[in-house]
């Protein structure tokens, strides 16, 4: 499903974020990418959605069979509609309601109004926000905002869900709810890539853990723990 082959990334002037990363994630897997701040785990997430490009080397990034190593800028929107992404800071549009925030991801792909009106309430119901369609983000708790972000990430029924520190701004109870939601999504067959530095969250999952240290994969365990 996801293949990073010999991927390196250096930020100007000479900060090496990733060094010859090799990572293969199979369809339907739930993988946690862990590491300390600055280890390079978020750089991997940014490479997967083509927010940044890898160093020009012999490396390759393949997502869902699509070689995105040298993806053209006009193809990026299409890639981002195929990968659901959830961020620590939710990244909701503050001037749009919950419904509009989720609908926006469909609107950008040219979906009809009737399709939007049928799908958006269903997805919001899945994340238990079916009764808060007209709320604005500033009227919601952190956990609710993250659930809106997850609903938006799921709206295109992506094969991959990338969650970059989704519990970073949440308390323990809300974190548990979000992780349970991600597990539920994974059970339905979606590949979930969780980028986190939260030991409790990762250790409670009992899923594959890839540890990044100084820009390199230091451990890759089938049922792993965050041990750094």
């Amino acid at each position, binding site marked *: 499903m996801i293949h990073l082959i010999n991927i390196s990334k250096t930020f100007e002037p000479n900060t090496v974020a990733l060094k010859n990363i090799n990572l293969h994630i199979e369809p339907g897997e739930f993988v946690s990418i862990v590491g300390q701040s600055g280890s390079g785990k978020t750089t991997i997430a940014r490479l997967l*959605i083509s*927010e940044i490009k890898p160093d020009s080397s012999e490396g390759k990034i393949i997502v869902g069979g699509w070689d995105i190593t040298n993806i053209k*800028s*006009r193809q*990026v*929107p*299409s*890639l*981002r*509609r195929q990968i659901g*992404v959830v*961020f620590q800071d939710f*990244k*909701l*549009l*503050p*001037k749009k309601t919950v419904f509009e925030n989720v609908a*926006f*991801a469909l*609107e*950008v*792909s*040219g979906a*009809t109004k009737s399709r939007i009106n049928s799908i958006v309430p269903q997805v919001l119901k899945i994340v238990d926000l079916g009764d808060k369609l007209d709320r604005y983000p500033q009227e919601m708790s952190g956990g609710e905002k993250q659930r809106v972000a997850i609903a*938006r990430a799921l709206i*295109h029924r992506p094969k991959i869900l990338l969650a970059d520190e989704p519990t970073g701004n949440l308390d323990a109870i809300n974190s548990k709810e979000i992780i349970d939601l991600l597990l539920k999504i994974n059970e339905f067959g979606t590949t979930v890539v969780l980028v986190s530095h939260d030991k409790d969250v990762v250790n409670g999952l009992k899923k594959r853990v890839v540890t990044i240290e100084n820009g390199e994969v230091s451990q890759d365990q089938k049922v792993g723990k965050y041990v750094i």
Partner: protein
Amino acid sequence: MILITAKRSIIFAIQSFWRNIWLSLATIFIIALTFLSINFLVVINAISDSAIAAVKDKIDVSVYFKQDVRETKIAEVKSHIETLLQVEKITYISPDENLRVFTERRKDDTVIQEVLQELSGNPLGATLIVKAKNLNDYSEILKAIDNPAYSDLIEKKGYDDHHSAIDNINTITNNVKRGAWIVTFMFIIIAILIVFNTVRIAIFTHQQEIGIMKLVGASNSFIRSPFILENIFSGVIACGIAISVIYFILSLIQPHLNNFFAGVNVDLVGYFNANFIAIFGSQLVGIILLNIISSSLALGKYLKV
């Protein structure tokens, strides 16, 4: 698909306009001020053009014929002058008409009235009043009148009195126009900078939103079009406000202008009515183009996510 996207761009633009109403109002205010500044110059130009045209209209060459010159000879001179391309109009004034006007004008001058009564006949000859198409054409007309064949017929020419006035008006006209162009050019540059930066600030406040739109898979054109449309709305509304304010101010100052320029017809409302499309259409198109260019340039920076 294209229709759906276009419709959504319009809806997003309207939503963004209302949900950021203070920013929208600030943008409209700045653009309306720019419109007003430019149209202030249009008013100045219109007034100076009217004033200069009125003075120019009073300039002509009067050819005074001797008393004993027969009408057939005068008609011959008239025909000759009429052949000149520079001539716009020739008016013939008969000796009787000249006498009537002269008597009327000097009716309070008892000496003149007495002299006129003592004279048995009309002491005045006929006159031809020649009006040129352009101020610069008078020299050609004078050359034609100075034909030696007519020197015995002509008592005097009235152009010399206006010669310096014509030169002065030509100089003033050219200087006013040159000055107006310089000021207009400066205003246009200032207007471009103001509008450009206003649009940049408006987009800067939306930078987080633009980043999020990109991350959920919006294409650059899908993000760009509502911003451009929103700025076009602002331009159109600002133009409407500026037109209302301008017509209101014109209706207030028009009566005072007529008093101030006594004898000169300075009809600003009529001028704006007659040139409505040219004045406001060109300004609106300019503002829209400026908005499109400013929005595209300002957005480009944030669309690289």
